[in-house]
């Protein structure tokens, strides 16, 4: 970025040098900071092994809809027929019917995955969405700003917003029946599943069970536990006898915890801003030195000589305007 000075100005060279210094210093500090090793993500303190989890065996689901109905009942929801076809403020889980190419039908229960390092929790500026000490992702409506950044962040497009509510819209999603769990009860959906397609337990227990099932029936199941690594690991896990992508699962989800993508940058800000503060303060001091002391610098313009308008009578005591 060295420039040719086509038309020399009296102060041109100083200006340019300072431009270059400014740009070099700031770009330099940004680049250095960008390359420094990322500080470890302050990962959630929740134990990944003992977190309450759910295993959905898609090959066993018969699409009866009991889970959806009991979820509505347990959470006091009243979805319309249309609302029952998807996730929204009145429906925290639903059964997606998928017709495969060979004519077979599968039913996919969808709800919040309760990520262990949840994107939505890291995104929320008011800690409204938060991870409970046990692991499920819950919500305090009174803190929520309704900014909807959680919706942008969720890799599974789960959080729903109440678009028709003027002043107190909430973010709505499955909270893993956290209150029921606190009282020692099972989540409503799993308690009412007639086929055992959903199973509740600790995450390590369910992972072991799922791995055992895959190992025992290698020809039947797809060799993948959806949620074991997706988005850094989720509490809801799925096994299936047909490929996950054919069922509409997002298979391109990164296995890195999503919050790490922003924390990579955020954790560098102190370094960048710190070094910039040093550079700027140094430059400011150098400038002050170069300019020398101006005895007039604290005199407001209207009291300086030769500044157009006539000088007014001083009224420093009263601090009053011209009245």
């Amino acid at each position, binding site marked *: 970025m060295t420039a040719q000075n086509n038309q020399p100005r009296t102060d041109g060279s100083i200006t340019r040098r300072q431009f270059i210094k400014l740009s070099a210093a700031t770009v330099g500090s940004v680049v250095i900071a960008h390359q420094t090793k990322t500080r470890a993500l302050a990962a959630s303190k929740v134990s990944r092994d003992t977190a309450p989890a759910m295993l959905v065996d898609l090959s066993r689901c018969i699409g009866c809809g009991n889970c959806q109905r009991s979820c509505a009942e347990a959470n006091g929801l009243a979805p319309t027929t249309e609302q029952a076809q998807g996730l929204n403020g009145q429906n925290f889980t639903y059964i997606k019917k998928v017709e495969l190419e060979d004519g077979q039908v599968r039913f996919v229960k969808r709800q919040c995955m309760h990520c262990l390092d949840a994107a939505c929790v890291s995104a929320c500026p008011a*800690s409204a969405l938060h991870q409970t000490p046990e692991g499920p992702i819950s919500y305090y409506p009174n803190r929520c700003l309704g900014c909807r950044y959680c919706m942008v962040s969720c*890799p599974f497009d789960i959080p729903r917003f109440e678009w028709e509510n003027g002043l107190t819209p909430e973010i709505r999603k499955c909270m893993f029946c956290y209150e029921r769990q606190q009282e020692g009860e099972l989540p409503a959906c799993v308690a009412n599943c007639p086929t055992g397609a959903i199973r509740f337990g600790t995450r390590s227990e369910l992972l072991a069970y799922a791995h055992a099932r895959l190992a025992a029936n290698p020809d039947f199941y797809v060799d993948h536990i959806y949620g074991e690594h997706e988005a850094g690991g989720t509490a809801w896990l799925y096994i299936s006898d047909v490929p996950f992508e054919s069922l509409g699962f997002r298979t391109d989800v990164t296995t890195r915890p999503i919050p790490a993508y922003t924390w990579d940058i955020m954790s560098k800000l102190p370094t960048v801003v710190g070094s910039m503060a040093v550079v700027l303060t140094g430059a400011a001091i150098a400038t002050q030195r170069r300019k020398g002391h101006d005895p007039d610098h604290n005199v407001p313009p209207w009291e300086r000589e030769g500044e157009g308008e006539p000088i007014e009578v001083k009224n420093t005591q009263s601090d009053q305007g011209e009245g």
Partner: protein
Amino acid sequence: MFQDILMLGALFILRIIVPLLLVIGIGYSLLRRLTGVKLDFSPKFVTGVGLVLSCWAIAAIALILRFTNGLGAITNLTDEFPLGLWIGFDVMAGAMLGGGAFVLAGLVYVFGIERYRPILRSTILTAFLGYALLIVALLIDVGRPQNILMLRPVFFFNIHSVLWEVAMCVMFYTTVLALEFLPALFERLRWKRAWQIVHKITLPLVIIGILLSTMHQSSLGSMWLIANGKLNDLWYTPWLPVFFWISAIGVGLGMVTVESNLSSRAFKRGLEQDLLASLAKFNSYWLGFYAIARLADVVWRGKAYMLTEPTLMTLLFWVEVGLGAIVPAILMSQPKIREHKNALYAIGAVIVVGGILNRLCVSMFGMWTYTGPVYLPSIMEVALTAALFTFGGAVFVLLSRLLPVFPKEETALTASGD
């Protein structure tokens, strides 16, 4: 049904038109008393004001609907596409366009380049109004603004949230901008003590302002890094925050050119053409570097093939980088062109348009690959944005009439270049 409409019409006239006319009438006569400003009611002026006022009226209706029937009533936003024009334009682009203020303030106060002082104050005023309206837009856009006003994010902070950091920085930076502008008010009122106090803390304020700007301008880019796998690969890069910061400076300086030209026309005053030209020279290197970095980044991530794909996204990318960086960088590197007043004005406008498109691509269009083209702003959304924009313009005009925003005409002004 018919009665309802009649009722609504009557209410509309009574509640909106009449108060609006009253406010304008009283405001105008007061203004005339106080400052001797006289308006000429030429047809051009009347239609202009009429358009702006009708825009404000639509916005007023939109606001009422938004707070009674919810965001869904006036926006095209859905659960699939939760953030739209108000975030993409008002917040993302608004902050970017205010970027000139921290650069110029830094040049003048930190690096002692006094020659930029004549355009500093109007730049700070532009930025302050931009940020103030950004906050207003945000308060309209979020579902529960009362929780912001009750400072919930301060008590229930989340340092992992980029949005939290942006919110804090914007809050503090708007205060800093207000303080940086206050001397103009104190000069008008001739409050010596107050002027001296603010004058004393200006240098630290400017440094804090630069740090806060660096933080939030870059973080407005980091915000979208959480949308991993959703934002199109042409824009999704770990360098996004750095690019946002660089372009905030480049486009911010472009905005300084536009704003100086506009006010020179509106107030029939001279133009600091040599200052703008020297800024443009710097900006040509800056934007040139930015353009190269943008392309290098795409290649470095192994997505070079995307640059030639016949898709809408590729087209948007080229238009955005071309208008926002490549073309202006080349044009402004020519002394002949950047010394020419109208040419520089036009280039400034092109930079601004390209910059805005960049922010819209990151926050809106770039998501289309994932969601499908499900969102375009509704009329109401556009009207509200336009209303805020014109409102900011009106306040700018008013304040620059009432306060010493521009340097006095006789000091070092050139009207050259035409």
